[in-house]
């Protein structure tokens, strides 16, 4: 598994080819590509800016890789996440999974996307006619992640502090 965090765009076909080439054990390849939508939360956006915490993404990778490989027989996988300013229609994120069988490839791709949505340290700011707005996290994304495990070891639990 590899993860790349970059401002540049990516080429899904070239990345897929590089992952799969020459490995005839692979029977199933799933790609997920996330794109910037023109309408988000009912409002038109002209652009989106992604901020991130690179050291933490790197630190988390070994764990997520181990979890994915414990769970599924993957021949190859790749995550690319962009940062910086992106316009509607542009690619934000890519997940590719390759396995002998389709169920493993589908599940691992969904797992990695759920992980990215709830655990990977990226933050989106949308530019609307009313100005720049930070996107709020969705409870539905936490729910999606919860299906993979109870007691996710690096769960970003709410901080509870006794006021005193």
């Amino acid at each position: 598994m590899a993860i790349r965090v970059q401002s540049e765009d990516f080429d899904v076909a070239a990345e897929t080819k590089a992952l799969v080439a020459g490995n005839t054990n692979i029977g199933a390849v799933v790609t997920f590509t996330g794109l910037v939508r023109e309408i988000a939360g009912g409002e038109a956006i002209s652009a989106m800016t992604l901020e991130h915490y690179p050291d933490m993404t790197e630190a988390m990778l070994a764990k997520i890789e181990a979890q994915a490989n414990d769970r599924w027989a993957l021949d190859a996988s790749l995550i690319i996440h962009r940062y910086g300013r992106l316009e509607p229609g542009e690619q934000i994120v890519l997940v590719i999974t390759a396995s002998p069988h389709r169920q493993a490839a589908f599940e691992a791709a969904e797992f990695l996307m759920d992980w990215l949505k709830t655990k990977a340290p990226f933050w989106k700011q949308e530019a609307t006619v009313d100005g720049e707005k930070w996107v709020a996290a969705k409870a539905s994304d936490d729910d999606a992640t919860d299906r993979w495990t109870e007691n996710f070891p690096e769960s970003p639990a709410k901080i509870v502090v006794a006021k005193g």
Partner: protein
Amino acid sequence: MELLYFAWLREKVGIASESVPLPDGIADVGGLLTWMADRGPGYAEAMKDLSVVRVAVNQEFAHSTDPVKDGDEVAFFPPVTGG
């Protein structure tokens, strides 16, 4: 210790990072957050609603009872919205 701020937390605090010595009597994430809120209006504003504050100590998500010590990298940020 090195303190990092991201997204609207960074905007409210007004800086992206700073180095501070471990405050006297602070030993865990919860103590650090209480101390942070008293450092000035920007910090108070940033820490006003802790239900939308997440903390990572040395690049790992941390709970309020997790320890902090001098030399740690502690990051404060909203729930993530990537992907």
